[in-house]
């Protein structure tokens, strides 16, 4: 009896040891690869001195583990099928799309690897990123940088455009390349709301004129947070009419200005709270929850960072066919999302080829097609061929989606990260808990 117990124990221990031994493969760092944490510029990396052809050659047969939010079947398909297959055919690079719930998971992955001393053999080669996550990675020295100049297609970007060069106020410094533009639009059902509120003041009045038919996701949800920022801008416009209104908020965090605007914003939001869905006792946890309320006609208005997603939503049965998008006359906030390469990626050459491929005019064109995805291009269309430009102009538009020519003029810039995090934290204490 005792002998068998001991035998079983020995077996278990031996098995565990064998498993650990089998998994511990040695990993030799390529020469020139980083040996400590910190931003790595192209010129100091293992790719230093290579021209573009040499990089493409080095990328041959490589793999790119691209970590990106995986909650949209349309985007997943676009990346896995369209991009993945073309990358394989043209460059013999395997694209491994790693779907995650939240971009911060990828950031934490790189962070944990760095803490464990993995400086050259990380598991993340590319991240779909912007805003707070980018700031965290840049400040933490977790990125590969200064590689715009080597990418042939980066010449097609307007490299003087401040909206590309600053990501939520953090200077991009060549540590990520633009992929798509996004701009907030309001959503309404034209069958039930014949004339939606035209600007922010009208929207706030609409909420109390139609009790229970409006709400917004609770910050720090991405979409809820941007709604609160719209109210914030609106209050700033009223407080500083002679000083540029919300433009006073752009730039580094200013406590005095913040306190003034925040006080007015929380007052406004608390004033309408009892008019909101469920009398403001609770807020939808995220954008998906708000979409569900909107599609069940529990609320009359909805908002989105990506107007084209409403067209997809109609096609997928999430939204009614009578759903429409529009921009507020007081302006809507726009931003850019990017792709970044972690400093410890072992496949930087392949990741660079993919970065460049994503900026290819043909690739950006097919991505902008609403039948494929419908994401707005980041290219400067004066720099692409006339033929491509015509095709961009001729792209079909879903009837539910506002034309970008109408939305773009209403664009407002994003605030810097410090403003954002302070607003989100104070919303909790000043609105949610009041």
């Amino acid at each position, binding site marked *: 009896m005792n002998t068998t117990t001991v035998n079983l124990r020995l077996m278990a221990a031996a*098995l565990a040891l064998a498993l650990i031994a089998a998994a511990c493969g040695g990993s030799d760092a390529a020469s020139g690869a980083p040996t400590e944490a910190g931003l790595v510029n192209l010129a100091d990396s293992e790719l230093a001195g290579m021209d573009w052809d040499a990089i493409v050659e080095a990328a041959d047969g490589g793999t790119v583990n691209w970590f990106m939010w995986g909650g949209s079947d349309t985007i997943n398909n676009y990346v896995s099928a369209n991009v993945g297959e073309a990358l394989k055919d043209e460059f013999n690079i395997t694209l491994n799309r*790693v779907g*995650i*719930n939240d971009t911060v998971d990828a950031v934490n992955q790189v962070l*944990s*690897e760095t803490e464990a001393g993995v400086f050259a053999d990380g598991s993340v080669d590319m991240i779909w990123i912007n805003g707070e996550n980018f700031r965290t990675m840049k400040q933490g020295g977790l990125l590969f940088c200064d590689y715009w100049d080597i990418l042939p297609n980066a010449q097609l970007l307007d490299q003087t455009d401040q909206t590309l060069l600053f990501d939520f106020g953090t200077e991009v410094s060549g540590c990520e390349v633009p992929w798509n533009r996004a701009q907030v639009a309001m959503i309404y059902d034209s069958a039930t709301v014949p004339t939606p509120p035209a600007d922010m003041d009208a929207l706030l009045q609409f909420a109390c004129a139609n009790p229970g038919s409006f709400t917004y996701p609770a910050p720090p949800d991405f979409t809820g947070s941007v709604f609160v920022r719209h109210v914030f801008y609106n209050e700033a416009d009223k407080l500083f009419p002679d000083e540029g209104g919300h433009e006073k908020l752009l730039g580094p965090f200013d406590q005095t200005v913040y306190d003034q605007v925040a006080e007015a914003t929380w007052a406004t939001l608390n004033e309408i709270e009892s008019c909101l869905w469920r009398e403001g006792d609770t807020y939808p946890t995220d*954008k*998906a929850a708000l979409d569900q309320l909107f599609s*069940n006609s529990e609320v009359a208005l909805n908002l989105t960072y990506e107007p084209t997603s409403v067209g997809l939503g109609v096609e997928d049965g999430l939204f009614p066919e009578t759903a429409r998008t529009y921009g507020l006359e007081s302006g809507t906030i726009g931003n850019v999302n990017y792709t970044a390469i972690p400093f410890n990626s072992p496949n930087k050459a392949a990741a660079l080829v993919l970065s460049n491929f994503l900026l290819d005019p043909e690739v950006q064109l097919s991505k902008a097609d609403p039948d494929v995805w419908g994401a707005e291009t980041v290219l400067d269309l004066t720099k692409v061929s006339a033929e491509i430009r015509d095709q961009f102009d001729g792209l079909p538009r879903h009837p539910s989606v506002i034309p970008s020519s109408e939305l773009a003029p209403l664009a407002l810039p994003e605030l810097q990260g410090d403003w954002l995090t302070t607003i989100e934290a104070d919303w909790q204490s000043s609105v949610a808990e009041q």
Partner: protein
Amino acid sequence: MTAVRESAVMGRAGVGRWLGIAALLTFLVLPLVPLVIWSVAFRWVYPDILPSEYSGRAWSSVFSSTNDVLGATIDTTLVALVVTVLSVLIGVPAGRALGLHEFRGKRLVELLILAPIIVPGLAVALGIHTLFIRYGLANSLVGVAIVHLIPTLPYMTLVMSGVFANYDADYEQQARSLGAGVIATQRYVTLPAIFPGLVVGALFTFLISWSQYVLTLLIGGGQVVTLPLLLFNFARSGENAIAGALSVIFVVPGIIVLALSNRYLAGEDAAVGGIGNL
């Protein structure tokens, strides 16, 4: 052995058995009905009781190569099987020691075994993650299987310790004195006696591993894609149809395993009753 006979008599009452089946249907099958409907719904909004339009989109998406549900199913099964085998190898001897023997510090050992249920697994896993990266275990199926032992081992050990508490080791001595070797004793005496409990413990282990999300995400680094990960991606982003289709696939192994081990769960054997005896 008397315990085995007693509860077998009780199980024969029949009514209890039918009540059990009715309960299984109500609590297991009924909640699945909306998921099945969601998976073929195109538009299903308040106040419609049934969808107004249907579509096969979710199922064709689930079986498309983009989502690689087949690969995820294989990986999930593989991990759960390895975890089950490891749990049995570790949990049976541990349960035997706790169930049959009194020793100094037994209470402490029991507390330590329960610790993974009391302490959030995530807190432990965050620390383990760094070690796993250093040893090259992160982002691999092996690493994920090992980390799944944290939440599964307590259950396996508890079940087995209950089983052994009702087990009389003298039968083994008798078999030995009648000439049976060590292996024959294990095979013809020990194993048959503990088998029902072993099945229940293995079943728990399989299902707990099968449904792990946080530990898999952390240690697997997004590269080990199991069904719960896919499911969460779609459920959280409001893709109800696809989430419904994935849920249907997700519960199939559970139902199969449950059906196979129904006999042991229906209370006809002593094993289940022994869980509380630790």
